[in-house]
């Protein structure tokens, strides 16, 4: 059953990615802005323009360009970036770890913070504490991630400068990375200065991304917990002598977490999308920052590569959430 689900999802994934490829390729070419026009020097002649157009392959028809690009994509070749003059696949894969580490850290913070607030709210339900937490969650949710970023920069970058404002690591740290997973590689190689610097640089952007999601998790999970706490099995646990906190953590949380898991899965993809602006704000060298540069410079191959990678990421994450939901929910597993 599970295998069949996976196979069907993989097939639909391929179809979706093809659709994304068609849409992205068409859109970036009909969007305003010709990359060749952007690089013309003052005295360029018609011949110079023709030379540049041919050099970047824009002299061919749109379908012809698409076929060339797609045949490259299926072989893992996404073309060469116009501005960075390197293979697109190499570029996006080199930036992917930065965005993944940032997103995962943001997710951890969101789940930990949101979970804590939800449990606290459920534990102190129908009290002033719950009202206060609800109000706080609402306020946090109403502020977008980039604005949180600016607030953090002002607070912890300028007024009380304890955290780094820009970049991913202190440029003065000497470390020859084998991968671009700085935290993971730093931990594995025992370079805690690298880990500390990377986490220090990630904290503000990760918090900016995490806060809105944390507020969402807090509200949904708390509501689910309250519903579970009214059910018979939790009453039975209380009768057996468990404390209220224990009832929540041991019994109610597992059942209440399932709907939250679905939310986290969906919102995680939005969180990755949110990295575009937050990475820009913190000059964090991830995919999002690269995407903005690519759009400004009309670097068509790079835009296509980044969007395809984002699309693949979204699909994989949604697939993983669906599968984990199936695994965790016995009714779906045996349905």
């Amino acid at each position, binding site marked *: 059953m599970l295998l069949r689900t996976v196979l069907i999802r993989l097939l639909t994934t391929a179809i979706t990615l093809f659709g994304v490829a068609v849409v992205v390729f068409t859109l970036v070419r009909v969007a*305003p*802005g*010709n*990359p060749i*026009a*952007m*690089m*013309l*020097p*003052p*005295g*360029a002649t018609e011949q110079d*323009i023709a*030379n*540049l157009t041919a*050099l970047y392959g824009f002299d061919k028809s749109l379908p012809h360009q698409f076929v060339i690009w797609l045949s490259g994509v299926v072989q893992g070749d996404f073309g060469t970036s*116009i*501005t*960075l*003059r*390197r293979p697109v696949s190499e570029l996006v894969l*080199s*930036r992917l770890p930065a965005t993944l580490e940032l997103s995962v850290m943001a997710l951890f913070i969101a789940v930990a913070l949101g979970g804590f607030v939800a449990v606290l709210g459920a534990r102190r339900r129908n009290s002033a504490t719950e009202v206060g937490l609800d109000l706080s969650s609402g306020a946090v949710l109403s502020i977008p991630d980039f604005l949180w970023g*600016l607030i953090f*920069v*002002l607070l912890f*970058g*300028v007024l009380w*400068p304890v*955290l*780094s*404002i*820009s*970049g991913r*690591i*202190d*440029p*003065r740290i000497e470390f020859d990375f084998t991968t671009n997973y700085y935290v993971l590689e730093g931990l594995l190689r025992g370079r*805690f*200065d690298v880990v*500390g*610097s990377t*986490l*220090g*640089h990630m*904290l503000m952007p990760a918090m900016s991304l995490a806060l809105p999601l944390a507020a969402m998790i807090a509200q949904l999970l708390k509501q689910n917990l309250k519903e579970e706490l009214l059910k018979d099995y939790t009453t039975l646990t209380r009768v057996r*002598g*468990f404390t209220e*906190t*224990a009832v929540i*953590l041991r019994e109610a949380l597992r059942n209440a977490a399932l709907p939250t898991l679905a939310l986290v899965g969906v919102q995680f993809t939005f969180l990755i999308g949110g990295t575009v602006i937050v990475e*820009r*704000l*913190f*000059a964090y*060298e991830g995919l999002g*920052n*690269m995407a*903005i*540069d690519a759009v400004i410079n009309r670097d068509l191959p790079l835009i296509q590569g980044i969007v395809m990678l984002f699309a693949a990421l979204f699909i994989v994450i949604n697939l993983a959430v669906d599968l984990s939901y199936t695994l965790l929910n016995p009714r779906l597993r045996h349905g």
Partner: protein
Amino acid sequence: MKELSTLSRRGFLGASAALSALLVSGVPTLAQDGSNLTIAYNLPVQSWDPTTGPAAVNPALQSVYLAVFDRFIGQAPDLSFEPGLLTDWSFSEDKSTITMTVREGVKWHNGADLTPEDVVWSLKRAANPETGNPMQFVWGKIGNFAIDGQVITADVMEFEPALFKWMAFLTAFVLPKAYYEEVGPEGFENAPVGTGPYMVDAFEQGAYVRLKAFPDYWGDAPEFETVTIKFVTDSASRVAEIESGNSDITTNIPYEEYDRLIAKDGLSGEAVPITDIGMIFLNDIDVMTDKNVRLAAHHAIDKQLIIDRLLRGYGVPISTLEAPGYAAYDDSIVVEYDPELSKELLAESGYSTDNPVKFTIQTTRGFKPKDYEMIQAIVGMWRKVGIEAEIEVYEIAKHYELRATDTLAPAAFYNWGNSIGDPSTSTGFSMFGPSPHAVWDTQDLIDKIGPLFVEPDEEKRIQGYKDVSKYIAEEGYVIPLLQYVMPIVYASDLSVTPYTSGDLLPQAVSKS
């Protein structure tokens, strides 16, 4: 009964302390550290080949390139030219050949000697269409190189009066022939080698470049042993970088922030006019074919007021495309602010505030400081004299596309850079119809500018451009607005030499 709590208070405090200690190791330290200098720069280096691709013609990236590479000919802070890797250069009397003398004793960062072969190879490579050098139209005008000792001679295939000025401008960098051929384009990107005052020590695409002083540099040794250039594209973040002390220098920040920052203890600033002007292209279509409308539009703009109110006084009003400091600048050409004259001119063509002339003006929003706001103010000034302009906002990429296909609206705001200050690269290419960058295409102007591109007598050429500028002002073919000012903020214990070209060179920073 077993307690289900998974984390004790002591455990929680311990874990918190450990995490804090870990994060503190990543806490920023003050940027300037003896021989280290940190710059928060507004644009990331895209490629380490300064001669090919779009990055090579991006004026904002030249500062970083100039720290690592040298050009054929150098340029002083005031735009004057000085020996670079060439110590001597000249045309022959009949302009049929050129002679260049290559500096002796210059080392590449890999320890090899700079040779005249490197210079010739760089020039040939620049002229080769397959390399993707966007300035082939210049480099293809010389060929048949011959080397005799340190002296290079070449034939002039097509006379270009500003050839040697181009040798101090975009893509005019000398690259190491032997090394480049050995490692190839990809190897060069990974480990660039130049002759400049700094060597690339570490580079993280989109994040930073760390430079180390080159001990064998042929010129004056730079003051700082290590320079870290952080690429911080967001201006608010650059402000935070300098304000927090994470960086020692930053640039291209809003003028309001500049004023605020330099008023603070420990920070100083320089705001100098640079070779970048704001202008309104007029297209020879629709109502713009009416000279009265064009001149009325120009006379109705109070440029000084715009500079004072929107740019906090940081700007220089201009009447021609030649700004102060350019070779063909003529301060006698002034288009006065005169709204009454505008009304009279419009009345001659049957327009008034009750029956306004209508057209569209295109502008970017946020591409240059207060660009959209400036156009809003101008439209307001126009309205008072009988011009009703509709603002259309577009991205800069769209502007380039429309300009290359000559399909801009009757009026379009743009900025024009000219780091060498030569009139051919301002009035010339922006107003000469056949150029892909020109918008006004009338034959009278083509006839006046065309011969100047090949005028061998320098005095006549410069005077010719002054005459053309006067003619353009009289005909109202373009509306020059202002010369921009570049704000630089830096730690007060530093001394920064600003360049009129807009470059911010780490080798031009010293301890005060």
